[in-house]
Structures are given as structure tokens and as C-alpha cells.
């Protein structure tokens, strides 16, 4: 006889046939093998991480719950801020994030805030954990705090220790002292779109942002669009072609927002991820001194591609976090909503939907972690596979959550509709998912050509 509460269609945990008690009489040596501990999937997954990364994941979750949760819906519903007018709540968040090391975790202590233990593993793995945990709570605030890292990575990949010392370390010290110094990454141009993210398209393109040689440096002219955090960044890694040359001459310049001729033209009105502005920025003969060239002239395309190969793991992590957030919103709804005297979670069709969401989310997390744990070298094919597949499946999971919640899911307070609007961006930025599919094939090219010849 069932003693304990149980969901409709299931035996109570104390029933003799329930999986909970089923193995109790098996031999002592076998019992631990067939009787898992009762823990959440999150705890189970965290336990599979190396201890340093498990600790890092717990830190990200605790920060997100403490600092991002309360403002997630209100910030999303607020009007878009004008350039340079960041809302006080987000300014406070950036300060806190800076002080607690959330803006400096690309480098290990004492240069940055990452633990030395986590540095034994690929950096992209920790970054994917970060975007997952922050994105699970609020993808807009996650982007506000994380697009910053995208602006720093080109400096690291240029392999220029001098530039790290001149630009990154002082900025990191500023942030840790509570004066956030934000970086941004600027590649996309008004007429370019995916050309900035894919070699074949780029080869035939006339660049729109151009650097002209002048005494002691370079003069930048042109525009960049959809620059995450471009409105508040103090330092921007800007990619520009050299005068009268094609995109193969792309060079990475560090532009600071106080340089004369730099302008934030406007912030876009976005569908979602509203806590982070997508800015249009303009360069009106901005003088950039020679020591602000990141790497060497004409290395920009390589630095850009290396940056994207690393950062696409983080976008995949956003997908996992958004799927997780949607799943939790749907489960919460199913447990608190009553229909005909029963919580919705008692209905089999609801149970099936929840099982699908949990499983899809676990599957993309597994794919990402599997790739990221070996990503000491950030492979283009692996990072692009993770980016497009995790984000496509994440949007599908969010749609499932909306479906479960029905017309309640359309309400802002449900949280799910925001997650849907946020998630849709992950299929577009850092290369549309179509471009990322092509990137997988580009990386497989030699093998495919060999098979053609073999046949």
C-alpha cells in the first residue's frame, strides 16, 4: 500500500516495487552500484567536474542568484537606455561584478581572479560554465558581464605580453577596485554581417572600417554595428583594414572611448538580452598610436578567427543556460499550477514535456562539456558544432517550456517569454548558425578533399 505522496501514475517511493527501495535486499557489494544517491541533476553534473571547476561553477551560480535574479524582469521591461546612460542598477551590478572578480576571470590570480586550479583546464570550459550559470538566470545581464571577455581575448591571442601589461592588467586592477573597466569586441560592419565571420565571404568584400597610416600611428574611419557593450566600453578591440587593401589586411586596434573622434552613435532596440546594449559606434579619423596595435599589422583576421573559435564555446554555454532556465520555469509552473484539483505535474503529457526538456538540456550540456574539456586547442569545428547545435536545441527547449505553460507562457512575469526572446539571439551572433555549420565543413576540408580524390 502506498504510504508516501506520489505523482499520478507513479508508485510512492516507499512502495516495494519503487526503484527507491527495489535494490535494498541486493547483496551489499552490489547495492551501491545500482542505488544512486538522491541528488539533483545539477549536483550530479557538478560532481563530474574537476574540483576546481566544480567550485567555480558553484561560484557562478551563487553570484547569478544573488546579483542577477532580482533585476532580471524589471531590467528587461525597462526602456532601452540611451548611449552612455546605463541604469543605476546595472552600474551597481558592474561594480559588484568587478569587485568580486567576475570581470577579470580570464586571467589567474594575482593578475586576474580565476583560481589557479581552474587554469589547469581549458579556459573555454570555465567560460562555458560561466555563461551557462549566468545565462540561466538572466541572459541579458550575462551578456553585459561576458561580452567584455570577448573584447579581451584578441589581446591574449595576439600573444603580445606588452599589450597585456599595458591594457589588460591596469583595466583588471581598476575593475577589482570597484571601478569597472569594460572591453568590447568590434568586427561587424553595416554592410558586412557574416562576412566578418567567414573566410570565403570575407575574401570578396570591401572593408568599411579603414585605417590610414599617419605619423606615429593610424587614423581610423568607419562604423561598426551590433557591438555588445560598445556603449559602455572604455576599451574596444576594433578590426580595420589598412587603406586600399582588402580584409586580409585586417588589423586589430585598441581604441579607447576617450579618443577624439570616437562616437557611440546609438543603441539598437533589441528583441531581447536588453540589459546589454548593442551599439553602433563610429570612428571619425580616430588617431590610434602605434602601441595600440594589437599583434602586428595584418594579423587581425587570424586574431579574429582565433577569438571566435574560443568564444563560440561560451555562446554554446549560453544556450545550455537558457535551456536550463526555461526548463526550471516550466517545472516551477507545473508544480504550482492546479487544474481540476491537481498540480499540472501530475498529468502524463506534462511529465513527458518535462522529461524532454530535462533530457535535451542534459544532452547539449554533455556535448559542450565533452568538447570543452579537451579544448586546450580551440578547434573551429568543435566550437562551431557546439555553438549552432546547443543554441538551436536550446531555442527548441524554450519553445517546449512555452508550450507547457500555454498562454501563461506569453506573460512577461512567466519569465519564459523573456527567455525565448533572449535565446533567439544566440542563433544569430558570433556567426549565424548557418555560418557556423559552414565553419564545421571548412575545418573538415582536407579530409573531405582526400575522400574525393580517393573516390
Amino acid at each position, binding site marked *: 500500500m502506498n504510504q508516501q505522496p506520489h505523482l499520478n501514475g507513479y508508485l510512492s517511493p516507499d512502495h516495494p516495487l519503487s526503484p527507491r527501495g527495489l535494490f535494498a535486499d541486493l547483496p551489499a557489494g552490489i547495492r551501491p552500484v545500482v542505488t544512486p544517491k538522491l541528488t539533483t541533476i545539477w549536483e550530479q553534473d557538478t560532481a563530474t567536474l574537476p574540483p576546481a571547476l566544480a567550485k567555480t561553477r558553484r561560484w557562478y551560480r551563487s553570484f547569478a542568484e544573488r546579483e542577477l535574479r532580482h533585476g532580471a524582469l524589471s531590467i528587461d*521591461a525597462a526602456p532601452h537606455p540611451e548611449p552612455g546612460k546605463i541604469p543605476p542598477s546595472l552600474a551597481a551590478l558592474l561594480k559588484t561584478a568587478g569587485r568580486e572578480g567576475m570581470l577579470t576571470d580570464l586571467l589567474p590570480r594575482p593578475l586576474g581572479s580565476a583560481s589557479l586550479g581552474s587554469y589547469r583546464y581549458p579556459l573555454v570550459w570555465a567560460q562555458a560554465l560561466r555563461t551557462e550559470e549566468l545565462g540561466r538566470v538572466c541572459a541579458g545581464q550575462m551578456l553585459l558581464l561576458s561580452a567584455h571577455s570577448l573584447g579581451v581575448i584578441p589581446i591574449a591571442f595576439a600573444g603580445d605580453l606588452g599589450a597585456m601589461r599595458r591594457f589588460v592588467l591596469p583595466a583588471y586592477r581598476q575593475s577589482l577596485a570597484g571601478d569597472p573597466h569594460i572591453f568590447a569586441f568590434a568586427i*561587424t560592419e553595416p*554592410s*558586412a*554581417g*557574416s*562576412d566578418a565571420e*567567414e573566410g*570565403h*565571404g570575407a575574401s*570578396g*568584400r570591401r572593408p568599411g572600417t579603414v585605417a590610414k597610416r599617419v605619423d606615429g600611428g593610424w587614423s581610423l574611419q568607419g562604423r561598426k*554595428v*551590433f557591438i555588445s557593450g560598445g556603449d559602455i566600453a572604455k576599451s574596444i578591440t576594433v578590426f580595420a583594414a589598412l587603406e586600399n587593401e582588402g580584409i586580409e589586411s585586417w588589423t586589430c586596434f585598441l581604441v579607447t572611448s576617450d579618443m577624439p573622434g570616437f562616437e557611440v552613435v546609438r543603441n*539598437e*532596440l*533589441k*528583441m*531581447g538580452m536588453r540589459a546589454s546594449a*548593442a551599439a553602433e559606434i563610429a570612428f571619425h579619423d580616430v588617431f590610434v598610436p602605434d602601441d595600440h596595435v594589437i599583434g602586428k599589422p595584418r594579423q587581425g583576421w587570424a586574431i579574429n578567427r582565433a577569438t571566435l573559435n574560443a568564444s563560440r564555446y561560451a555562446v554554446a554555454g549560453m544556450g545550455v543556460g537558457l535551456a536550463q532556465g526555461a526548463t526550471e520555469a516550466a517545472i516551477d509552473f507545473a508544480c504550482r*499550477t*492546479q*487544474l*481540476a*484539483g491537481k498540480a*499540472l505535474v501530475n*498529468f502524463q*503529457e506534462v511529465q513527458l*514535456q518535462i522529461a524532454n526538456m530535462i533530457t535535451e538540456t542534459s544532452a547539449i550540456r554533455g556535448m559542450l562539456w565533452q568538447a570543452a574539456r579537451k579544448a586546450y586547442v580551440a578547434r573551429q569545428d568543435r566550437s562551431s558544432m557546439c555553438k549552432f547545435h546547443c543554441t538551436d536545441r536550446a*531555442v527548441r527547449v524554450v*519553445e517546449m517550456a*512555452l*508550450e507547457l*505553460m*500555454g*498562454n*501563461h*507562457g*506569453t*506573460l*512577461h*512575469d512567466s519569465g519564459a*517569454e523573456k527567455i*525565448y*526572446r533572449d535565446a*533567439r*539571439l544566440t*542563433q*544569430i*551572433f558570433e556567426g*549565424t*548558425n*548557418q*555560418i557556423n*555549420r*559552414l565553419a564545421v565543413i571548412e575545418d573538415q576540408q582536407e579530409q573531405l578533399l582526400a575522400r574525393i580524390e580517393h573516390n
Partner: protein
Amino acid sequence: MESLLEKEDLTIVLGEVRRFARGVVAANVERPEHALPRPSLDLLVAEATEAGFIPEAGEEPTGLWVDLDDPLGPTLSARTLETLASVNPGIAWTCHMRAMPVWLAQRLDAPEVLEGQETAVTLQGYYGLGRAALPRYLAGSELGHDDRAMLNDWLLPAQHDARRVVHAPAGFEAVLSPYFDGEAVRWVRQPIDALDPLPIGPTLGLDEVDAIALASNDAGTPLGPDDPEEARKIFAEALLIQSLALVAVGLGCLRHASELAREQAKTRIQGGRSIEHHPAVQSLLGSARTAVVVVDALLGGMAEGPLRANRIGDVFAARAEAHPLLCRGATDALQVFGGSGYMQDVGMEKALRDSQQLRLMGGTPGELERFVAEWERVR
């Protein structure tokens, strides 16, 4: 039944609707990032009424959902909504919501419900679509205790403080909603002030429409025929009309998004040529266009007249298939634009949000499929 309408009549009327949509409505909604101000919306609705697209109370109403006994009547209404939605889905939905009380008042033989306060009809139950109880009720099966409890709670969830969400034209003052009295679905008209209205902030889509959460009670004079069979038919017909409206508005929305995407693909240059030549973009355009063609065919079947309650299984099945297609088409059309598609001033993100909103109103595809399964079993 012989049609009083000729196919040429449809062409003429829909031509007028098209001229109205492109000449009058489009001028008001050319900036999709700005929600249409209430006075402009009221003016548009007044003009649509004046033009005869929205019926008014009276002896000879014309417009949406008026000639449903005519074989071509449902098609005319559905295609009218589709045409309006190809310019703005929210305005099309508003027109539908303005027309519904006129149809229902006539069907309930209760013209008094159109007097006084501006009334909206809502069919949105508290959650879902009444699970298996609804098809059993509509098929005339004997209902068990659980079925009655489900129908009662779905339509009138007073016992656990749940609220129904109503998406209706801005400023409506009363709501005409169904409830289950243990034997049949009846109707009651109530001022929304009596239902503790809670305005809801922004919703996923249909920015032009208000969303309000209402408490439930059955205070008021029951409306509708005494005959339970006739009451069942009226409720089924109301659900049919709503299904037609949701799919028609969704189709108009996607038709527009698909055309915008095609134009974008023609003019946008990447890799040295317009992106319409890239197979990756062609797949997206093809997906959007395929969804338009397939849903157009589905809507054609759904709208075959005259409107008959016993077609509800087929109509729900078609709607269950249509909405995922519409959403897929809308998201693929947006993807053609890349980053700019995500920005509000382009209008593609609104098309996607509207498509998703329509998928989730009045029963989701999964709920419709479960309805169909039970309907097939019991009818």
C-alpha cells in the same frame, strides 16, 4: 448548401480589404518598434467598421463572421483577417475580437449583450484546452465526474484563485465568457470591474492588444439556449471561429515576413553577391515560403463552409499542424536578416513574437493533438 456569395464577390471584397490594409493600416504601422497609440488604433477600427469589414449590431450586419452558413462565408472572413494581418497581426486580431460579440449575440439570440459597455468574447480557459473532457463534451459523450470537474475548472477556476488571461482590444469594459453548468456550456456577460481585473505588462506578441488577468465567477444571467445540444454546437462553432482567426492572422503575419525576407535576400550583398544566391539563405527562404504554401492550403480546408460544429476535429488537427509551421517560417525569415532581424525597427522580431503568441493562445499544438485523439475515439 448553395452559396449566395460568388467567387467573384470574394475577389472584390478581398481587394477592398487589401486596399484598406495597404493604404490605411500600413501607413500607421510603418515603424514596428513603436506600438500603435490607442487613438490611432481606435480610428483604424472605426474606419474598418465604416468600410464594412467589422460588423455592427443591427438587422443587416456585414463583415467578419457574418455569413458562416454560406459555403464561402468562413473563407471570406478568414481571408479578410489574413489580409489585414499581412500588414499588422495585432490590428487583425483586434478586428476579429470586435466581430466576435456580434456573431455570438446573434447566435445566442441575445442582442442585449451588445448594448452599453464595450464587450470582448473570451474562449480562453484557465489552462489548456479542457484535456479529454472537451472532446467528450463536444462529441456528446456521457461525461464522468472528472470530466465535469475538468470543464468546470478549465472555464471557471474560482475555487483556487486562478485567473484567466484575456487578450482583447484595448479599453474593453465587459467580457462575454463561457462556463460549464454541469450539463452544458453557457455564457455570461460581466463587467470586468466585477472580475478584479489585473492589467498585465507586455506579452510575448500582439503588442497592439491588451492582456488582462480576470478572476472568475458565474454571477450574471446565463445566456444561451436551453437545449444542451444547441449549446454544445454554439460552443464548438465559437472554438472553430477562433481557430480560423488564429491561423488566418498567423498566415498573414508569415506572408509578410516571408516577403520581407525575400526582398532582403535580393538586396543584401555578402561574399560578393546577393545572399539570395547562397544555398544557406535559399534554405531559409524556402522554409518560410513552404510554410506559407502549406498553411494556406490548411486554412483553405479549415475554412470550407458552411461552418459546422462536427468539423472541429479536422479544424483542430489542421491548426495543430499550422502553428509550428508558421513559427518555423517566421524564425527562418528572421534568420535571413542576421543581426538586423533581431532589432525592432526591422519588424521581423515582431513577426516572430506574434507567431509564437498565436501558437500559444486558444490551445497549444500539443493540446490540440490530444483533443483530436480523443475526438476520434469518442465521436
